[in-house]
């Protein structure tokens, strides 16, 4: 019986028989059974133990019982059983931002949401990893771990709305005769929005529908290709954002690639969202 990086027990030893992740150790892959990755879970039944560094080696598979939160200086406690057995930089997210189910592994057991969406890691509060020799998954950015308990990396995201000439040319070329009526605005003052809360809707105000999007592109100048509710920016984990198109009339692009309706596309610093006939929203993480 093997245990996969997400903590599932698997009879097959090459790939997890539940979630399919590779179990077999190969060069560059972190060993999933490494005991040091159990932040914030003290050995069961020992409340008040300092969270920093005490490894709960092997208790991951047993679903370590958690004492009351009073023992820990900050929130973001892993709930449920297997929150931390990743073999990856410890992720403190407690429940799925999409459906609220308690987190048990890399993927939400209920709706499949992927907790390891890149760019969404925040330093785990109240945790200093006992050893930093554990390599993170290749390709993922690991933010420097905070040594002081409660040190949240304060990250603010800004969305800058502007008119995008290059995108407009592309849209015109693709639209043929229908596109001829749409002109590029002579003047467009850049608008900045600070991303806050759990979601920010992008669209155009509609009194009849009672729709007041947080990023309201009603204008003037009005981009006729933008739907009333065109896209939504969704907060993921502690300080990441993703964009979702719930079904706009003309679609949404991220860095030039069209996003599929219903897909949450994680955003990185400097990503450009294009929508409508000439609008670009660039997000900055600072």
């Amino acid at each position, binding site marked *: 019986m093997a245990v996969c990086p997400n903590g599932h027990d698997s009879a*097959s030893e*090459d*790939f*997890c*028989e*539940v*979630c*399919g*992740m*590779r179990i077999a150790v190969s060069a*560059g*892959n972190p060993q999933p059974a490494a005991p040091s990755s159990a932040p914030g879970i003290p050995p069961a039944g020992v409340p008040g133990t300092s969270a920093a560094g005490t490894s709960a080696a092997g208790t991951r598979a047993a679903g370590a019982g958690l004492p009351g939160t009073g023992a820990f200086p900050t929130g973001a406690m892993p709930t449920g059983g297997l929150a931390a057995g990743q073999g990856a930089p410890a992720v403190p997210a407690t429940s799925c931002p999409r459906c609220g189910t308690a987190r048990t592994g*890399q*993927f939400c*057991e209920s709706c*499949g949401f*992927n907790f*390891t*969406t*890149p760019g969404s890691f925040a330093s785990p509060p109240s945790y200093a990893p006992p050893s930093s020799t554990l390599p993170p*998954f*290749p*390709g*993922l950015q690991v933010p420097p771990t905070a040594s002081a308990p409660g040190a949240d990396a304060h990250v603010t995201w800004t969305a800058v709305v502007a008119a995008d000439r290059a995108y407009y040319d592309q849209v015109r070329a693709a639209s043929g005769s229908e596109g001829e009526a749409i002109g590029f605005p002579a003047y467009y003052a850049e608008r900045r929005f600070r991303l806050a809360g759990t979601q920010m809707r992008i669209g155009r105000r509609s009194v009849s529908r009672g729709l007041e999007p947080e990023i309201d592109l009603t204008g003037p100048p009005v981009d006729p290709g933008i739907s009333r509710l065109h896209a939504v920016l969704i907060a993921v984990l502690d300080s990441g954002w993703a964009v979702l198109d719930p079904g706009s009339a003309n679609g949404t692009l991220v860095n030039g690639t069209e996003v599929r309706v219903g*897909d949450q*596309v*994680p955003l990185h610093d400097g990503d450009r969202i294009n929508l409508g006939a000439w609008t670009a929203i660039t997000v900055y993480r600072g």
Partner: protein
Amino acid sequence: MTQSGFTVDVDQNQYLPEGGRDVSAIVTVTSSADADGIPAAATGAPASAEVIIIDCSGSMEYPHTKIAEARAATAAAIDVVRDGVWFSVIAGTDTAWPVFPPDGSMAIANDASRAAARQAVTALQASGGTAIGQWLSLARQIFAAYPARLRHAILLTDGKNQHQTPDQLLAALRACEGVFSCDCRGVGTDWEVGELRTISTALLGTVDIVADPSGLAADFAGMMRSAMGKQVADVALRVWTPQHATIRFVKQVAPAVDDLTARRTPSGPQAGDYPTGAWGPGESRDYHVGVEVNPAGVGQEMLAARVSLVTGPPSAAEVLGQGLVRAIWTDDEALSTELNPRVAHYTGQTELAGAIQEGLDARKQGNEEVATAKLGRAVALAHQSGNEDTARLLAKVVDVVDVETGTVRLKKKVEDVDEMALDTRSTKTVRVKKTQS
């Protein structure tokens, strides 16, 4: 992996871009060429059972050669049945009855029983209607009494299923699924390609047109020889996928296109079985499997599907071979945008089969624009993939103006036989072997 004489090879581009979810692979299943021996015949339960179903409706007399050649072809097939195999011959009209053995049992093949069967077949007369569901039901009853491992039938008709409703045929067909496999042949041009294809697809067999009755004997002997060569019965493709993944499709793509996606039977947590029928030594078939997975992080590797070949009852299935379909997420665009040539080829062959069928349907309905567009696309695809057989069949139905762009003109007059030949053989594909690298 080689176990029990089967190999399962997976050919794919396993690299996905960040956030990518679609995994596509060609799975080639080959049974080893050296037969370990003919399935045991003499002891215990029979290994193989064969039923030959002959249309004896009145139309088989017009022309008389149809029924005459059908008798000869049945005799030719009987001669190929190996000693020890159970067999029977039934006749079908708007009802069905056993011809040999006349009591509806099955005979063990040997020189005496084969001779007696040939004798009984010479007495076949053509008169009556056509209700193919009845023929299938009788075959099913006969097979049910003789639980052989390999159960196969040959069905010959010359006309449409006039004396039954489509629902009645479907009901009879559904009861036969999994009981026996059936290769269907239509002689002449008065039968319905769609009807026979429904039967052959459901019963995991082939379908073809034999335009000239004199070609029946060779065709029947060939089918029976192929049936005698089968060794492993009731083989299924078992596909396991991880939690939250969905199977988009499982299609056989060589030697012919056959969409198995809807034929899934659940067989365990996150696993389902797709039927592939019986296999003989040296047989090779290609399958195209498409899975949608939840993206993992860049650098992570996931098993998108585990494809195994299984046989035997669900409670004691024997695994004959296994292949792994992987997914590795990468930010290297050169890796993730590469198109696996075999996946691309078979995607094209599947599109080719669809284009032909849609084009022929449109032509029948008088929708010339759509027919021209679809058959034109088929011509281009057949040319690109080197599918010369299909290109030749297409050239009998359309005039090709430009083969590269697929510009064609519908022929004003198309012989039924040419149209039906194109229709029945539209699913035959050209194979692309994996290049050894």
